[in-house]
Each structure stands twice: as structure tokens, then as C-alpha cells.
């Protein structure tokens, strides 16, 4: 009799649920996964190596392209690490702006995550609903930085510029008549903060819609409960962070444990799960969105009342105001040096991590005092989470592998970097 071999399935990299370019070799017994072997590197762009040949500010836009669904958070970690080496303080307003945009980014990320996760599990409508809400936040990104995705808004020492006083308007065009344009501009009359506040007021309603569609849905529960269970001990051993760790019941959040930016001054809760299954992680992330909404509201209030500088006045790091540059020799030299050589960072090592939407995102720098880092190392949360794939998927069915990919919230920009 011929011996029975397991079925080996090459899952991805061209697969609708591969979230980019995940290639997974699945060993199947019938439909049951015996071994899941993730292969990475198909999106490798050598970000770490590239950073060694570029000035400190030039490398910053590469951060956007790491985890390309939570752009500003990546920049934040980069700036924090650089600031640690430089030993400079960010102005209070800059810190609040960063906090606010980190949370906007968290909502952006979680919206994309819940949309894709639901799409993977088969509820395709969610993806389109979340994209409706993402559109508003993308507009916020655009208003502040000029780009909808790859913002490059943070700088070592603060943020590039203050929040704009008016939102970009929709204009009449052959495809958009005056009525439609006016309708689209209905909440764009005020400042960026007004627009964002309008969003935060609407968001809980949208959030409730998602709960209605999914949370108590029997099929959704059957697909998520007890799928990909990770015990708290195992989660810590494997280096899980973020919602993957909190879903297992470990209350670890860098925003609380090692506060950075303005997180020690805002009020928010850290939701944790009980069972460490996909459903708990789903609930954790859903609640995180509401908490982010809360933080954004507090930041809006603070930012309205407290005008001030948004970037450090150390002009060896941040460019001087243009007017000063025209009248002051020293500032002109600063400007010239900054835009030709770039920042000089004192020799040393620094690691800074932030609570990224996906987990702990850290940047480790070694500087030799030159105008570019000697070495940069990125700690990407998704990379660590992906190593748990085999353990989480073993014994489950193919359909659960898709659920687990979704619940890990992996993005290949940061895993392959």
C-alpha cells in the first residue's frame, strides 16, 4: 500500500488573504494544518541599510513605508530615538500634536485591520464601511502634511509645521456639481481641529454599526472564538506586543508603562482580553479605537487652548524660521548646514519604542557622530507576531489560517522592511 503523504499547499504570495506578500507553506492533513511555515522577504527593501547612507531627516520618509497603514507612528519611533541621542525636548504643543496623530493613525490602522479581517472571514461589507471612515482621517493626514499616506510630518525635535487653519475644499468639476461639492464640504468649513472633532463625534456611531454587524453575529463568533489561542505566558515568551499581548490578558501598554509624548497627560483605558483567542483580540482592538477617539478629543481641547511652537528652537536640529534666516547670518548658516549636511547626532546608542497600533515598534540607533546613523535597527511587531503563526495555526483548518493572519494584523512593509 502506498503511504499517505500530507498535502503541501503553497499559500501565497499571490493569494487574496496573503496581506501583501506572505508566502506560507502549509502542510495539510485533509484540511487540518499540521505545519505552517511562513516565508518572508518578498518585500525586502533594505530600509535599515539605506538609512546608513542618508542623513537623519532623509531617512524619515522611509519610515512611512515600513508599516504603510500606520505611517506617523513609525515616524514617531524614529524621531523619539533621534531625539534621545540628540538630547532635545519637543515643545509641549508638538507632543500633543504627535499624540493626536498617533491616535488618528491607530484608528486608521484598526479600521483597515477590521475591514480586511472581516473580508478574510467572508464579511465583505465591513471593508467598504471602514474605508468610508478612513477617508475622513486620510483627509486629516492630507491637510496636515500634503500626503494621504506617506506623510513625513514628524521631525526630530517636533513636527514639521503647525496644524492648518482651514481644510482643503472640494471644488466643482465636470464630475462634481455645485450641490455635491457643497455637500462634501459641509464639515470642512472650520479648522483641521473642527473637522477632526466632527469626526470624533460621529465615530462612535460608526463603531456601533461595526459591533452590530459583527460582534454578536453567530458566524463571526464561530469563526473567531477559540481560534489561534495564545496563553499569556506563551505570548510573553514569543515577544508578542500590542493587541496580541493584551488579547491574552497581559495589561502591557507602552503608553501607560513608559509614557512618551503627551500620553501621561491624557486619560484613557487599556482594554485587555481574557482567553487570548482571535475574538478577544478583535474586541481589544475595537475598544482601542474608542479609546483613541477619547484621546483625540482631549488633544483637540488642549490644542485649541494652547498655541505655541511645534518644533524645537534648537536650530542645529530644526531649521530656523524663514524670516530669521533672511536677516541673521547665524541662522543662514544653520539653514545651509541643515539642508546640505543634515543634523549631526552625538555618538552613542539609543533605543526608543512606541505603542504602535500593531505592538511595540522600536528603533535602535548607533551613531558615530556623523550626519547619518552608523546603524539602524527596526523592531517590527509584525515580524515577531508572524513567528507565532505555526503555533497558532497548528491543528486548525485552512480557513482558520486566514483568520489568524487577519488577527495578527501583519503588514509586510514592516516585516520585510
Amino acid at each position, binding site marked *: 500500500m502506498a503511504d499517505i503523504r500530507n*498535502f503541501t*499547499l*503553497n499559500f501565497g504570495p499571490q*493569494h*487574496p*488573504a496573503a496581506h501583501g506578500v506572505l508566502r506560507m507553506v502549509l502542510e495539510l492533513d485533509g*484540511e487540518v494544518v499540521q505545519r505552517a511555515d511562513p516565508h518572508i522577504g518578498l518585500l525586502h527593501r533594505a530600509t535599515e541599510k539605506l538609512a546608513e547612507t542618508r542623513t537623519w531627516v532623509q531617512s524619515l520618509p522611509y519610515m512611512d513605508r515600513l508599516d504603510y497603514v500606520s505611517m506617523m507612528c513609525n515616524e514617531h519611533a524614529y524621531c523619539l530615538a533621534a531625539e534621545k541621542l540628540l538630547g532635545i525636548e519637543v515643545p509641549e504643543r508638538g507632543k500633543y500634536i504627535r499624540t493626536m496623530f498617533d491616535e488618528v493613525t491607530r484608528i486608521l490602522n484598526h479600521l483597515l485591520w477590521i475591514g480586511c479581517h*472581516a*473580508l*478574510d*472571514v*467572508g*464579511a*465583505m*461589507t465591513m471593508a*467598504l*464601511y471602514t474605508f*468610508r471612515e478612513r477617508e475622513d482621517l486620510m483627509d486629516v493626514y492630507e491637510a496636515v502634511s500634503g500626503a494621504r499616506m506617506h506623510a513625513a510630518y514628524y521631525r526630530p525635535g517636533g513636527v514639521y509645521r503647525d496644524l492648518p487653519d482651514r481644510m482643503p475644499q472640494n471644488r466643482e468639476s465636470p464630475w462634481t456639481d455645485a450641490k455635491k461639492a457643497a455637500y462634501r464640504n459641509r464639515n470642512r468649513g472650520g479648522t483641521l481641529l473642527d473637522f477632526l472633532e466632527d469626526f470624533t463625534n460621529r465615530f462612535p456611531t460608526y463603531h456601533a454599526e461595526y459591533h452590530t*454587524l*459583527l460582534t454578536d*453575529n453567530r*458566524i*463571526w463568533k*464561530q*469563526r473567531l472564538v477559540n481560534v489561534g489561542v495564545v496563553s499569556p505566558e506563551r505570548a510573553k515568551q514569543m515577544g508578542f506586543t500590542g493587541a496580541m499581548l493584551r488579547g491574552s490578558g497581559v495589561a502591557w501598554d507602552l503608553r501607560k508603562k513608559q509614557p512618551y509624548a503627551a500620553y501621561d497627560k491624557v486619560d484613557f483605558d487599556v482594554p485587555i482580553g481574557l482567553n487570548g483567542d482571535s475574538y478577544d483580540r478583535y474586541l481589544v482592538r475595537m475598544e482601542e479605537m474608542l479609546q483613541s477617539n477619547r484621546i483625540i478629543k482631549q488633544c483637540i481641547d488642549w490644542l485649541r487652548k494652547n498655541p505655541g511652537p511645534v518644533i524645537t528652537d534648537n536650530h542645529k536640529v530644526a531649521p530656523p524660521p524663514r524670516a530669521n534666516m533672511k536677516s541673521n547670518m547665524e541662522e543662514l548658516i544653520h539653514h545651509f548646514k541643515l539642508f546640505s549636511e543634515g543634523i549631526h547626532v552625538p555618538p552613542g546608542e539609543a533605543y526608543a519604542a512606541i505603542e504602535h497600533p500593531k505592538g511595540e515598534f522600536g528603533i535602535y540607533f548607533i551613531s558615530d557622530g556623523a550626519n547619518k546613523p552608523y546603524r539602524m535597527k527596526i523592531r517590527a511587531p509584525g515580524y515577531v507576531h508572524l513567528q507565532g503563526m505555526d503555533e497558532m495555526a497548528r491543528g486548525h*483548518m*485552512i*480557513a*482558520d*489560517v*486566514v483568520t489568524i493572519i487577519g488577527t495578527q494584523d501583519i503588514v509586510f512593509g514592516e516585516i520585510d522592511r
Partner: protein
Amino acid sequence: MDALMNLGVGLFGAAWPAVWTLVKIVLIVIPLMLGLAYLTLAERKVIGFMQVRIGPNRVGPYGLIQPIADGLKLLFKEIIIPGNASKGIYLVAPMLSIAPALAAWAVMPFNDTLVLANIDASLLYIMAITSMGVYGVILSGWASNSKYAFLGAMRSTAQMVSYELAMGFSLICVLMVSGSLNLVEIVQGQQSGRFAGYGLNFLSWNWLPLLPMFVVYLIAGVAELNRAPFDVAEGESELVAGFHVEYSGMAFALFFLAEYANMILVAMLTSILFLGGWSSPVGFLPDSIIWLLAKTSCILFLYLWFRATFPRYRYDQLMRLGWKVLLPICLIWLVVVGIWMMSPLNIW
């Protein structure tokens, strides 16, 4: 009509009955094909509106030419045969899929007299013919020699077998109460009853006394059709496209057409078996084929609504639902109906 018959006999002589049957087949198939082409458009539009978007609106006014454009596109595409595929079976499979989907329409009644073949065992015929459809799926999955297609075919086979049972049992209840396998008689049986006497015909239809069976049939019907939330056989996010992953061009289109033809078939069967077919819901309006089409459309809308709302079942959960939930309900209700019919409370 008689004049037409005489003219036909005069023109074709003894071959006239065969020609007349062919004409009738064409008269059924063409509206059916148009219907399923526009069902694809309706699906995209309906789901589009449910998903806060517009759906196709570029080809023709409101996108009305879209299905024709899609058809033309598929027609002109190359049918790619994978190198390792078993060529003969690979090409036969789509035909095996579409043929039963169309053949089943032979006995479908549209009103008391408008039916191609009014045979006594028409329900049995439909059951037998639609069961053949699974061969197309199995053979395509097997002949493609692709792992995703193979998994899809395996899932589909198991699914069809399990849901056919629940479906069969719910049909048995209908047979018991109407005492006939003939679809026309099943509809006529629903036109009388206590409520029909008051002019509230819709309360006399089978759906009310056989409510659990109606629900079971509706669910099993969706599962039979491999549609969301039971679309594990093609489960886009798991198996890419399942059994037809290797097919392209018209060969793919045949699977697609078969799926939609089956959708309309099952929806129409549901309205005939449980919703009184062409009978009018209230006494003062005449019976008409329009009622049948309206009921069918409502059920089709339900299918689209399901697809836009529900996540997909996992394969084993689908089996569990079929064997552990639907089948026991059927068995219990079968006994209940049997006792009911034997008791003095019998309403049939």
C-alpha cells in the same frame, strides 16, 4: 393557438411536435439567460448600495449594458488549459455544470398550463437533475490538477451531499401535505384552505404550517447554491476561487452561468413549494405569473442580502449545521406533520 398549430403541422408535417418543443425550449431559455445576465448586474448593484457605493454605472445608462459587456469580454478570452490538467474532463466539467442547471427548467411551471413538460414526478425530476450539478464541480476540481481546485471540489462534494439530505426532507413534508410530486398540483393544493376562504390566500400557503421546513429549505438552498455564507467551495479568501480557479474565458463563464441559473431555479422552486407559486396573495387579485416572478425576485434579493451581510462559515461548521441542526429539525417536523395529518386537526 389552434391556427398556429395547424400552420406548424402544415409546414413541418410529422416533425411539428419536435419543432414546437424546440420553440418552447427557446422561449424558456432566452428569458432565463437574460434574467441571469441581469441578475449579475442586480447583484452588483444591490450589494453596491448595501456597501455605500454605486456599483457598475459606466456601460450604458445605469450600467444596464454591463452584463452584455461582461459576456462579450469572457467570450473573447482565451480558454487556458493548464499543462497538467486532464484535458477532456477539464473541458467537459463546465458543460456538466450548466446542462443540469438548464435541464431542470424543463418541468418548471409558470402557471397552471404554462409548462414545457407537465410530468407527474416533476419534483423528483428536479431533485435528480440538480444533484447532477455536483459532478461538474467535482470533475472540474479533479481535472484541473490544482491544489486549491481540488480542495474546493472536496468541500463542495461533502457540502452538497449533506445539504441535499436536509433539502430532501423538507421537500418530503411538502409532498406529504400536497399528496403529489407534480409541481402544478403542489401549487394548486396551496390555493385552497381556511384562510383562502377569507381571501387571505397568503396564509394558506405552505410556508406557514411548514414554517420550520420553509426556513430549512431556504438555508439548504443557499448551501446547495454554494453561495455566501456557505460559499466554502469557492471561498475567495481561503481557496482563491475554489474549484474553478484554473478556468478562464467562456469555460469560467459557464460555471458562473450555472450558479446563477441555479439561483433562479432554487428561488423559483421555493416560491412554488412554499409561497404558492403564481397564486395571488389576496383573494381579490387574479393569479398571475407576475406573482411568481415577484416572489422569486424577493428570494433572490435575500440571497444577495445574505452575501453582503454574513461572514463565511468554516467547512466543519457548515457540516455541523447541516447534520446536527437542519437534519434533526427536519426529522422532528416530519413526524409532527405526519401526526398532524392523522389527527382530527388536519387542515390539508
